[in-house]
């Protein structure tokens, strides 16, 4: 084997030897990356998620954050425990998020029955007037495919 053959072999083999493991790792990352499908709900509108319908009545700034008043209605039997698998957040326009915790109310106790839920999120005062409320489906045992979420416009 002369020098030229060796050089050509090196030029061919080296990129393949480096690229193949990288491609495999990238595939693993892509397969395990969290994906989300966000449905945007207009002000006053109703969104459907995890066997329940959700409607935001208002998002109001309070002393140390915001208060969210929400109507949740179970659409079937599973919807009576819908909030066990959901995560409540508020997002500002730059994508930062804060968790919202339930202050009063809970899942509707029967199909079709509206439950009034009040939540509270602690956040800086300068973003209290702009944050949007988000409900995310976050089951304990992950399911295949993108996770659904509702984003409520103000």
């Amino acid at each position: 084997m002369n020098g030229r053959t060796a050089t050509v072999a090196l030029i061919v083999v080296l990129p393949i030897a480096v690229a193949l493991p990288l491609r495999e790792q990238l595939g693993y990352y892509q397969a395990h990356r969290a994906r989300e499908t966000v449905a945007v709900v207009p002000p006053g509108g109703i969104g459907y998620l995890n066997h329940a319908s959700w409607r935001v009545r208002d998002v109001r700034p309070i002393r140390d954050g915001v208060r969210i008043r929400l109507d949740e209605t179970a659409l079937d039997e599973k919807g009576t425990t819908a909030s066990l698998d959901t995560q409540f957040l508020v997002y500002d326009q730059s994508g930062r998020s804060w968790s919202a915790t339930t202050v009063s109310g809970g899942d509707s106790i029967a199909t079709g029955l509206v439950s009034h839920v009040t939540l509270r999120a602690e956040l800086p005062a300068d973003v209290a007037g702009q944050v949007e409320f988000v409900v995310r489906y976050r089951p304990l045992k992950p399911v295949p495919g993108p996770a659904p979420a509702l984003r409520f416009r103000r």
Partner: protein
Amino acid sequence: MKAVARVVIGLAFAIAAIWAKAHAPDDYDHRYAPLVAYGHVGSPVTVGGFAVKVENVSAARSVTSAEGEIIRPDGVFVIVAASARSLRKPLSLSTAMLRTRDGREFRGSVKGVTIPIGGTLDGVTLGPGLWHHGVLVFEIPPSQLAGSTLLLSDRFPNENDPPSGFPPFGFELTAQANISLGLDDDRARRLVSGASEGITIRGERT
């Protein structure tokens, strides 16, 4: 002359290969070690999705639960006062440990007391733009205190030993703050000898 050049180039490649092999991480723990940011008391440390600042370190010979019960440690309680915040999304400092000079790790706890969520800094949910102030409590033998560092991470440790199931097993490639408490032998001795009584921690006896 040409033959000499080839030998030199060949040797250079061989040396480079040996160097690369010697310096490349060769085991799982090494390759996937936590991504650590180092700091010390008084300086904020930003790592991964959170920032933390240790403000003060003190010691206590006892803590008093919310019910008024006085709890005494086998060693000494180390109380770390700190502030923390997240940068982008809600998270908790799920793991808080003291690592001693010889590599032992002590998980944050108060003997026999369950700290409710929000009772200590590692139990609160942090949000962007909001500094939460709180304490972290460790029980540690006084002789181990000198040279200890505080480790903080937003991931729960894997409790299985040996680890089972799929990765991640522990703290692979996770952000970790490693904060020196500035305790040399003399300072550690003075901290223990000056340990106070009866710091109140909200909690319930189990």
